[in-house]
């Protein structure tokens, strides 16, 4: 009988799912992904999570509940650190424990620890551990892993071309306008929030409906971002923070964007610092319009819509004003 492994459509899902899906499928397991976030799932998640947790963790628990009665294992790795000397966030570090103690009657979790804080030297040991839930054959595991890496690289490549995994489905390439109405906006936020239609109030679609070309950090060369982030006074030890601040410095120096929007998850401790630092860095010596959107469990979209509409109006207005200036002097 094939082993059924459930992958919750939340948190790191949007960054890595082709890697894990391909890996387990190559090993012969069946992968079941939870349904896209919906109100019912969100409600269940909120009900079964400690109050202090951020919205994305609540949504994640909703996805675990969605899967729990139809799979043999639920994939909830203990993600401590994926880069040297960096961490993700305290909630990721304790996620399997949090899930286990919040939701009753769970099938066993695949909760292998991913910790490359010291080095990646023993990465294969971690891979074998993940594989051991399906097979004990190291050759099979190694083969599956290399296939998975390939799928993962292809996935990242598509995202870097401006295809977004909204609810896990890659969109077609965005239309690049090349006329004077063209607006390009940098969109910052956790992948698990931006790509979750419910969790982001569908912000990407809303922006695209306004004719906005979206720039996300994944579309900028990662080496450049890391280089910029290295110029910070102090090392940013959160992986997400490093990416966001590196992007901020890059945008400030090579600004061909008309504005920047930072989507923050209500209750996110990292956002409370990074959002503010991001604003300061993008605005330093420049005047890139900036909008901070905090999204929580409210289902009312009016507040978000009003702010977005005003932001786009402002950009249009500024562009029209620039166009009115005489071409010479």
């Amino acid at each position: 009988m094939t082993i059924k492994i459930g992958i919750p459509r939340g948190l790191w899902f949007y960054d890595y799912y082709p890697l894990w899906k391909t890996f387990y499928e190559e090993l012969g397991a069946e992968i079941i992904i939870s349904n896209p976030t919906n109100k019912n799932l969100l409600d269940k998640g909120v009900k079964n999570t400690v109050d202090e947790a951020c919205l994305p963790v609540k949504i994640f628990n909703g996805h675990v509940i969605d899967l729990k009665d139809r799979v043999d294992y639920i994939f909830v790795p203990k993600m401590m650190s994926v880069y040297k000397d960096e961490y993700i966030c305290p909630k990721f570090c304790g996620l399997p424990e949090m899930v286990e103690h919040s939701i009753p009657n769970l099938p066993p979790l695949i909760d292998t620890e991913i910790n490359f804080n010291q080095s990646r030297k023993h990465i294969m040991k971690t891979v074998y551990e993940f594989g051991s839930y399906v097979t004990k054959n190291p050759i099979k595991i190694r083969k599956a892993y290399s296939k998975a890496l390939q799928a993962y690289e292809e996935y990242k490549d598509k995202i870097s071309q401006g295809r977004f995994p909204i609810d896990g489905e890659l969109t077609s390439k965005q239309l690049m306008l090349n006329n004077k109405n063209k607006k390009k906006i940098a969109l910052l936020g956790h992948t698990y929030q931006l790509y979750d239609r419910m969790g982001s109030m569908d912000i990407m679609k809303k922006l695209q409906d306004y004719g906005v070309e979206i720039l996300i950090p994944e579309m900028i060369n990662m080496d450049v971002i890391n280089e910029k982030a290295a110029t910070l006074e102090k090392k940013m030890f959160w992986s997400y923070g490093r990416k966001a601040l590196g992007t901020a410095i890059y945008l400030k120096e090579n600004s061909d964007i008309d504005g920047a929007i930072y989507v923050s998850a209500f209750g996110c401790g990292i956002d409370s610092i990074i959002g503010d630092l991001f604003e300061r860095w993008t605005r330093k010596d420049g005047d890139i319009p900036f909008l901070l959107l905090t999204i929580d469990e409210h289902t009312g979209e009016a507040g978000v819509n009003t702010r977005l509409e005003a932001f786009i109006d402002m950009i249009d207005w500024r562009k029209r004003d620039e166009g009115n200036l005489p071409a010479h002097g």
Partner: protein
Amino acid sequence: MRNCYLGIDVGSVSTNVVLMDENKEILGKVYTKTQGKPIDAVKRGLKEVQYQITDEIKVKGVGTTGSGRHLAAMMVGADVIKNEITAHGIAALNFVKGVRTIFEIGGQDSKIILLKNGIISDFAMNTVCAAGTGSFLDRQAARLDIPIQEFGNKALLSENPVRIAGRCAVFAESDMIHKQQLGHNQEDIIKGLCDALVRNFLNNLGKGKDLAGPVVFQGGVAANVGIKKSFEEALGFEVLVPPHHEVMGAIGCCLLAQEHASKNNGTDFKGFDIVHSGYQVKGFECLDCSNGCEVIEIMKDGQLTARWGDKCGKWSNNITTDQEKLA
């Protein structure tokens, strides 16, 4: 016959209607409480503004704004539906020359708008929390049994303001009660509250922004002279309150409608007669998928005119076919 433009601002606390002529002269203005019934408030506003007009007029364009802008637009047939920030910015630009900064405090939201060379260059709006906005002041005035109109004047009498924590409305209230039980007089507590709200506003929204004068203070709360004084003390220069400060959003809509009319022909305005129409609103939860959208149906004189609230669009898009079926 004078050509006019109608602006309607349906906010959380008040609904404002303004009628402006082509020379930007205000012919009529109404400030009425929304009281949780935006449909009634819009009708009441239209009726009252009609009473104020003596001349023959012709409405050439209509604009709506505020959190109830879509509802109002559906009722009256609006040509322009705009967010509050743009509407307030445009109104201030037209009524105060060279304005650089706008503070706007309404019933449930507060915003700061910065302008450069006559265009909006930056803005910030309060997040989910409504601390320091009109509805909180209303509540405190009611608790202290002071009419809201006199609240500001009381603050001016204070000689020794107390310090109140204004970060959160709930904490501010308990802090106020604490100070009151210690025996501080009412004027000092009210002034302390005004200072706290201003401090909160400037820290929260004005954070990191260059607040250059002239500064215009508008919205319903601008009627409160206590808050105006606290702003001036905090900033160190004068803050202007324009003559029609409480209806600036609606004025912005008139201006936007005028601009729209100059580029397009005709208006969608359904006429003042709609005040005699009966509107029923029905809400239901669509159970076709697990999103469970809360769909709103608006019936005008028994006929379905609008639907919204669904994510997938199957209710809002189907309105014409359903109308035919009903007919």
